[in-house]
């Protein structure tokens, strides 16, 4: 009499999800995984939990991460040096200060047009915007109105490059520049005293 092992159905689903994540070019949401595997979202979540414990830093060279509103595989951080010898990372290489400032404006205020970006930064943003579009970090998101200026938003690739599960993970602007109000108060105080 042969001994037959009873397979846990979640294990089978986990293997299917592994396969889907391997072939996907971008992070897959729970709904997308459920649709592709023809299974329920609750069971997909359970299977993802199983995979997360299996594919984690220190245990596997592949790490399952929740990023850009979905799930995706990436290389373990300990293999970063080896990865850097194999592949280039042109998307994030050599981003200038102008590009980073433009990216910040689009990330926080997007969809936002080039004139709006230029108004905030005080200089024309055409070159920085074109560079970010070429890198795939921002993309067109319609126009302000019919015939109006093109507006831009950040892409899922932006979230993935910066390791953000969503834009809500960005720090509050007020927390980043707490001295802004102080500067304003000082300027107003000095100028106001002369005007009075």
């Amino acid at each position, binding site marked *: 009499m042969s001994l037959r092992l009873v397979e846990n159905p979640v294990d089978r689903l986990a293997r299917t999800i592994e396969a889907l994540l391997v072939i996907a070019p971008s992070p897959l949401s729970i709904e997308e995984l459920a649709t592709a595997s023809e299974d329920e979202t609750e069971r997909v979540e359970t299977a993802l939990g199983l995979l997360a414990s299996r594919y984690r830093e220190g245990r596997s060279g592949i790490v399952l991460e929740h990023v850009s509103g979905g799930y995706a595989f990436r290389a373990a951080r300990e*293999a*970063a040096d080896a990865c850097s010898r194999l592949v280039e990372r042109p998307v994030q290489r050599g981003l200038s200060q102008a590009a980073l400032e433009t990216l910040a*404006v689009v990330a926080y205020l997007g969809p936002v047009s080039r004139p709006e970006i230029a108004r905030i930064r*005080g200089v024309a943003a055409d070159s920085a915007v074109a560079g970010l579009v070429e890198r795939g970090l921002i993309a067109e998101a319609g126009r302000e109105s019919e015939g109006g200026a093109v507006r831009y938003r950040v892409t899922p690739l932006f979230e993935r*490059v910066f390791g953000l599960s969503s834009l809500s993970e960005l720090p509050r602007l007020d927390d980043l*520049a707490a001295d802004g109000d102080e500067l304003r108060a000082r300027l107003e105080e000095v*100028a106001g005293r002369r*005007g009075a």
Partner: protein
Amino acid sequence: MDAYAVRDLDLDLDAFEGPFDLLLTLVLKDELGLADVDVAGVVLTFIERLAERESPDLEACGEFLVLTAALLELKARGLFPDEDELAFDDLDPEEAAEELAERLAIYRRFKAAAGWFEERLDSESDRYFRLGPAPLAPVPQRPLAPQEPTSLATALRALAAEPPAPSLRHLELRFPPVSLFLDRFRAVLRKRRRFVFDNEVDALSRVEQAVAFLALLELRKAGEIKLGQPAPFEPITVWGVAA
């Protein structure tokens, strides 16, 4: 030197003479171009005043630094004027100060956010992931091995030599003489009263078929044969005309 002394700091510059707070007000109202203001001269005057004191006033130094930094920032940004720049002429000093301070504060926030992005990019620099199609591998550097000038000269001479003219022999058409087919068709007609042209030339090349057709036309012109064809592209039948 207390905090008020910073505002009352007397300046004697090429473009402006008076207290520091008046300079700031004129700049905010756009009545004085910052490009004309020697900010370094302002700093020197402040340092001279500071040196007159027995002990430095840290609070005054701090305020002066903030105000000077704001002036420098305004001056730097003024070098790249925006077409949409709001005119400050119509604003009173308080509104102008309000507008400028507001813009600077907003810009400072996004500048700080850019700094956060830069730090984040650095901390996430060890994240590697597959992005659509496989990314290109870095181009390996292949430094040249030490070279001999003489071997380089030999290589260049070989490149400079006139290449041999390409042969066109394979393109040449070889036409058999028309007389060959004249004799052949006459010989056939001596044996038979008629023959089908297509059958006679079927095994020949296209060039030979063309020459054979010319021979056929020559015979027709000389009145030695009659030709018949039921329809275009149908086989051509040839009859010999008795002399």
